[in-house]
């Protein structure tokens, strides 16, 4: 498809079922992606080192080690967006996968077209919330460089994933106003009203671990009970 841009994005497809890999590769290539395959966690990590993809599609049920472990290992060496493939939306798998560092999840049976929408949302750059918004935002002792996709505290660059950065940038762009979970799901992940708000909650939790001095009692990234979240200096 032409809307993925002139340069084809590359995907790493991790699934132990050959038929699934085969049909997803065919369908995703038809959607305009470059697809590499891995049948287990070890192969996946090797492929990741050999040629880093733009997005990893990771099945939780793997023969050698489970998807959560693989995801944590991926996170240790890369901030590449990871989409978990789970069997059920309501099992512990979803939260566990997100806690392990996944950016989003999809459930089986999944269709390449829907998957493609999720991938595009993850790869989209953050657009400024309004035209007057400067490229660099300052919140407390944090400096957010929007075009450079970098957050610094003093001289130190904070190790945020792309999704965490987008989430922080959207909240900073709201200039102290509350953003509801639904708004964040739509702005960061491209979901409609019925996106899974657990995705937001887990990412907020992870973001706090990285930007708050005391993540247990956050000073910047605060919860507006029943409404959503906001970022304050």
């Amino acid at each position, binding site marked *: 498809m032409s809307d993925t841009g002139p340069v084809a994005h590359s995907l790493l497809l991790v699934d132990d079922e050959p038929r699934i890999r085969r049909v997803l590769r065919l*369908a995703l290539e038809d959607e305009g992606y470059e697809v590499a395959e891995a049948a287990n966690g070890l192969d996946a990590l090797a492929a990741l080192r050999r040629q880093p993809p733009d997005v990893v599609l990771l099945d939780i049920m793997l023969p050698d080690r489970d998807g959560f472990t693989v995801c944590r290992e991926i996170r240790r060496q890369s901030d590449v967006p990871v989409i978990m493939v789970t069997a*059920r939306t309501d099992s512990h798998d979803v939260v566990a996968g997100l806690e392990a560092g996944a950016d989003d999840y999809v459930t089986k049976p999944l269709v390449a077209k829907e998957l493609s929408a999720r991938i595009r949302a993850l790869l989209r750059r953050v657009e400024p919330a309004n035209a007057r918004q400067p490229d660099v935002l300052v919140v407390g002792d944090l400096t957010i460089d929007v075009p450079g996709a970098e957050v610094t505290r003093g001289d130190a660059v904070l190790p945020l994933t792309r999704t965490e950065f987008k989430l922080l940038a959207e909240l900073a762009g709201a200039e102290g106003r509350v953003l509801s979970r639904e708004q964040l799901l739509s702005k960061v992940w491209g979901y409609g*009203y*019925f996106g899974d708000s657990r995705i937001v909650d887990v990412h907020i939790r992870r973001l706090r671990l990285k930007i708050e001095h005391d993540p247990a009692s956050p000073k910047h990234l605060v919860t507006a009970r029943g409404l959503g979240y906001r970022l304050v200096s």
Partner: protein
Amino acid sequence: MRLLDGTSLRGRVTIAYGLLALGLSLVLAIVTWSIVSNYLTEQRRESAISQTSDNAAAFRFGLYGASSPCTPARLRVECGSAERRPGVTVMDVLNSLPTSDSAASMVYVDSEWYSLTGRPEDLPQDLLESALTGTTADQRMVVGGQRVVAVGVPLEQPGNALFQWHPLGELDDTLQTLRITLIAATIATLLVGLAVGRLASTLALRPLAELTKVADAVARGRLDARLDAEEDRDLGGLARSFNQTAANLERRVAADARFAGDVSHELRTPLMTMLNSMQLIQNHRDELPEAVREPVDLLGDDLDRFRRLVIDLLEISRDDGGDRGSREIVRIADLVRAAADATAGRPITTVEPRAEFLVMQADKRRLERVIANLVENAEDHAGGCKGVTVAPGGLGVVITVDDAGPGIAPEDRNRIFERFGRGETSGRGRGVGLGLAIVARHVMWHQGTIHVTAHPTGGARFIIELPAK
């Protein structure tokens, strides 16, 4: 026991105890009454006879004079016929008799009546004849409203006799007291019997009350409810077989759910292969030969339905598998609007202003399925969705979904919420599959209610009530 058919078991046991106590105490009271009253009456009669007999002897002595008082038995033989003592009238003698106990004394001497008190006419004929022909007799009677025992004792001169009557008032008082005591005792026994029956039945039925509670819980879907009376000597058997039954039921339901879940799970891999292959084919529909385009479209449509069925099966088995779901505070109006409008592909939702800010703890995904399934059902099988409304009322918020179909016959209105519960008389395709079964479950999961009625302008109206505030 037909009389008591409408009464509870407890009531029946209580009444049975009461009747038993009443019966026993009645028998006791009647026996006591007959023995005591007979005995007392006999005593009184004997004392009356002996007094009058003594008086008869005294009378004879007073009138005729004799060395020793004549006893009634010896009167005629030993006392013999004597001359009256001179200067003594019958009335003098009669007056001199002790009158302590008698209410009246009269004497028939030499064919003439002498009466101190009382009238000879009051005497019963039988008594009169017996005494005048020489036999002591007594008879109970009523004189001047007073109960008395009349005694007639012959004097030794043939045809003469002394008559007296003695009041029974004191005896009557005694018997009255006895009667009241016995009645009171009978009533008290009846009450004690009822109380004991009540207590006994309550104690005996307490395990039954627990059984009812547990059976009720099982009936309402809590299949893990069990009786803990297995150690009870009397009810152990019942409790064990009840628990066994409940456990079997729970296993069966779980196995059914697992089976549906496993099957749909296994279906997912081939389904994914088919769906993605089909999508690829459809992406290149233009390159297909004319002849295969229509079959491919048909295949694509049915593949979609198949996918939907598998997803629904997974959804149902997820619920049967005891999924707890997630709850968050949700604005009902926003959720309904988002789900209904997106499903219909056009704005169809009307929210009453007062319902705009109603919120509840809800599982967004489940509630979305409820609204989406209803709207989809109306769109696909019932001539289109005519509108969705959100208004305050009922449990908190009332949501209606109207369609333009032929409506649902009253006898099908429960069945359509069952799994694969196609209404028998309402058009084909209506409510087929699991869509409405999922709707009903998810509404129940939120402690809400759903029912379907006829819309005034035709078509069906689904009405959901949810506990929103």
